[in-house]
């Protein structure tokens, strides 16, 4: 299956994918409760992943990568569950174009690197 994007293979690439997705969600301007809740939740879980990567940068390498693996599992599951809803919202919000690919890129990167 062609994904149309390159899967991140290291922490800086995964971080960049997560930050790109965060930036896209932060720029979205949902105008109803349902869309706003989906965007808020997606932002919260992407922020949780980015927080783990920021913290990982501040802790010793071995223990930190294991800690990140455990901590990003929940947010990644939530994000995968939101993918269809975000794709549906992107029909109304142009800034979210390509959001499904962005989600896949981050999820696949984290799966590859952290084995979650």
């Amino acid at each position: 299956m062609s994904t149309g994007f390159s899967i991140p293979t290291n922490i800086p690439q995964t971080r960049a994918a997560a930050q790109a997705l965060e930036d896209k969600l932060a720029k979205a301007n949902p105008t109803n409760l349902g869309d706003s809740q989906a965007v808020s939740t997606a932002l919260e879980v992407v922020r949780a992943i980015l927080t783990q990567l920021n913290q990982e940068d501040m802790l010793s390498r071995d223990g930190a990568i294991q800690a990140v693996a455990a901590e990003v599992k929940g947010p990644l599951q939530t994000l995968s569950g939101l993918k269809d809803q975000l794709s549906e919202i992107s029909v109304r919000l142009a800034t979210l174009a390509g959001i499904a690919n962005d989600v896949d890129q981050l999820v696949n990167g984290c799966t590859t690197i952290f084995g979650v």
Partner: protein
Amino acid sequence: MHVRCGAALSLLLLVSGCSISPLSQRATAFSTAAMAVTLKAQNAYELVEQSYTDAQMASLVNNFDTKGFNTSQIQSFMPTAAMQARTQMIAGLQQYATLLAEVSGNQSVTALDTQSEAVGKSLQGLSTSAGLSGVAKNAKSDIGLASSAVDALGRMLIEHKTAKELPGILTQMQKPVDDICQLLEDDIGTREGGGLRNQLENDYDSLIAEQRTYIYANEAKMTPDEKRTEIKLLPQLVTTEQQDDATLAQTQAALKAVAATNDALATTKNSKQAPAFRALLVEIVAEGQQIGSVYNATMSK
């Protein structure tokens, strides 16, 4: 206010003629300015802890009806050991600044010796601790480099110094002060690439999204005035984030200036005039005052 007065007095001392040697006058002025910056460096971490907590609170409020509350939902951004390592390093820099002022003043330093010794010993303990390895890795530095810097600063603080040793202290402390300031600067990071500035931006993005969701979820029950108040919070959050990010960037620049000014001070040991040092000192004092006003406003919210 005390810091501003102190800085002004130090600058006055620097330009006035008095019996203290030119190097001691400069060391005193540098000490006051460096002290102010190190206090701000500690505030930088507190600023991001606050934004991190606020973002968690906003999510808790919006999701309480479906998720309820458990204590694990509210956590601190920095692990305790990592934060303690930073606090100790900042305390070490502060004590170094205090020591310079006291030694330059040519007065009895007995009380200071006790304080310096305590800080010095805690730094030597830190140089071998796990907390420091986290700081060093964050700074993309060699752990040995960080450990040496902290150990050297600790050792210097433990040794009892007198005025005649000032030139030697300055030379000895150039590299450790440079390295510790660099570690703290790297911790502050960039908006895009990680560190405190990135965390702050992401926290505020979440806060804004949660505030918007809160308005949509509750607007049917709000009066027009209540809705207006909630909507007005959105641009306020944007402005606050911009101000706080600028403050972090200024703190980073001030730390860089402290290291550069310490280096410049060390090179003026035998000089009567020191224009390069003075220019850097004025820069630190100005940055310190700007940063101070923003932190005061933010922390009093």
